[in-house]
């Protein structure tokens, strides 16, 4: 693994998921190994410690310097800093997302001109932190990349929209709303984009079934993919 050694810190590990059995299958049918009682927990990548390596420290320094212009400090706005597979991810508290986005775009030392959209992720077992929104940014001036991750809960699925700062996120936020039900406050027209307007539910949440019907093939009946014997998820 190219990941740096995991540095032990005092922080409480963030539980992301719990899987059972040798293969981590969610269906009981899959595991005939005799290890069906095994319980494995999946934890979030621990926070990175300074120095982060590469150009990541420069980004963090610039943010520390520039964020006070938005009346917020680095420690307030950024929950955690994660470095994994040579990529920097800043876990930003949702109240400060707009402040961070504005600084990323406008600060001369940062100059992340483009936001490459937003993608959702659903972690139903991460209590009160079920919905994640991940924003990749690219700086053409400095030829750098950074990712921002914002976490919110299913019961309060609100994240501020950054379409007024990065207009390109208009459709991307609509897509994330469509599939995950994250409501981007301040979006000019947050409507479904891929699914029909009257669709019920958010299809890419983990509790939304894939759907499908059993298919007969040469006398055998093949169940739909989400009901087959599986080895994970």
């Amino acid at each position, binding site marked *: 693994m*190219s*990941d740096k050694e995991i540095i032990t810190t005092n922080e409480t590990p963030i539980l992301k998921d719990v899987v059972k059995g040798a293969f981590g299958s969610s269906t009981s049918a899959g595991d005939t190994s005799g290890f069906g009682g095994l319980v494995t927990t999946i934890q979030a*990548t621990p926070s990175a410690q300074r120095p982060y390596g590469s150009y990541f420290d420069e980004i963090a320094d610039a943010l520390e310097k520039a964020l006070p212009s938005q009346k917020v400090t680095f420690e307030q706005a950024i929950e955690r800093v994660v470095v994994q597979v040579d990529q920097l991810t800043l876990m930003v508290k949702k109240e400060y997302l707009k402040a961070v986005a504005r600084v990323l775009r406008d600060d001369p030392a940062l100059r992340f001109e483009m936001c490459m959209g937003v*993608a959702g992720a659903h972690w139903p077992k991460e209590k009160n932190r079920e919905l994640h929104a991940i924003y990749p940014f690219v700086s053409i001036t400095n030829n750098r990349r950074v990712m921002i991750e914002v976490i919110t809960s299913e019961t309060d699925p609100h994240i501020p929209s950054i379409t007024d700062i990065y*207009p390109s996120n208009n459709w991307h936020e609509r897509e994330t709303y469509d599939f995950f039900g994250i409501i981007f406050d301040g979006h000019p027209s947050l409507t479904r984009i891929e699914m029909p307007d009257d669709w019920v539910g958010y299809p890419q949440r983990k509790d939304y079934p894939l759907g499908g019907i059993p298919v007969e093939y040469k006398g055998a009946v093949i169940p739909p993919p989400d009901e087959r014997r599986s080895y994970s998820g």
Partner: protein
Amino acid sequence: MSTDIFSGSYDTTQGRVYTLSGGDWDTVLGSTAGERERIVVNMGPQHPSTHGVLRLILELDGETVTEARCGIGYLHTGIEKNMEYRSWVQGTTYVTRMDYLSPIFNETAYCLAVEKMLGITDQIPDRANTIRVLLMELNRVSSHLVALATGGMELGALTAMTNGFRDRELILDLFEMITGLRMNMAYVRPGGVAVDLPVGAEKKIEETIKLLRTRFKDNFNILVDNPIWTRRTKNIGVLDLTGCMALGITGPVLRSTGLPWDLRKTQPYCGYENYEFNVVTENTSDTYGRFLIRMREMHESLNIVEQALTRLKPGPVMVEDKSIAWPAQLALGSDGLGNSLDHIRKIMGQSMESLIHHFKLVTEGFKVPAGQAYVAIESPRGELGALVISDGGTKPYRVHFRDPSFNNLQAVGPMGEGGQVADLVAAVASIDPVMGGVDR
């Protein structure tokens, strides 16, 4: 009013709304005397000039478009959701169907992200990377040829269409020879590529390049100074650098503003730093500039293919790590590409361990360490980003594609509003959206 369900009328807070479906214009014109006229025309999704199943909702003032909005979602097939129920390797057969005109790019972006999380990026054999580059550049040519062909057709240049599709066929023949399939190949796999180049591939590619170069010259000459073509494309669909930045536009549309931003140069992957090529730019910011860029990029791509051919050294095309490398050896049989008989003979008759290993890797698949990675590559349409999340299991936890077509379609309004309907068609063609990628 009539009781026809397709051409009724109803009251709204904005006034009375009439729905027309053709042929009944006169009856409505008579009844609307004195009312404010505001015509909203629905163009598509089944329309030959909307570049696929794109629905344009246009507000018109005569021939002038005052407001343009896109309706998408007609090709949504839930690929991202489906992938969460399949193994990491099976994922390639899904992503390849997203942007169906650039399947190799989808596969490569996905595989680079998976390899990054596996931490095997440095272990990918040179030959596999060279083959990836070779196929990506051939794919870029075939994709640009379709862009020019369909773009030409939408503007009435039917010879550009027939020429474009004729030449694309040459590249699809190469794909068929190398991967077994013309489209949706699932050829690039996590760890390398599915199978080595067949015997005689290099020679066939060289011959095709030679033929393509002469054909490009013809295609270029047909259009480049053609007065009809230049009048339909020059100063049409203008989007300047500021607009591109604000809307996150990448690819030929961004390069038509003069900014040489090409991920192959700026953030190289698959060994692009070892190839010599130019980033083609224009500074007209219009449809004509994007046409020129695509034309010249095809030449650059062929240069890269030639360099890739000289760089091809014998060697493996899959990582050595047997816990990741697909166990089967593929061979071309009478019924197409499949498991080689030698391999089946070995696992069925000689080595039980190989059989177990094969079975485990094919049914269960390999595990990818928990985490997430975003990898972006330069597709023919701009930045194609693959965000891949793993929970440590044998299936992707979540895969999201940042498809350039999806993002770039947001520019339809800024490019087309204020122009004529026919110019909007030219602008959409210059974005070259592929609806399979837009809707996924």
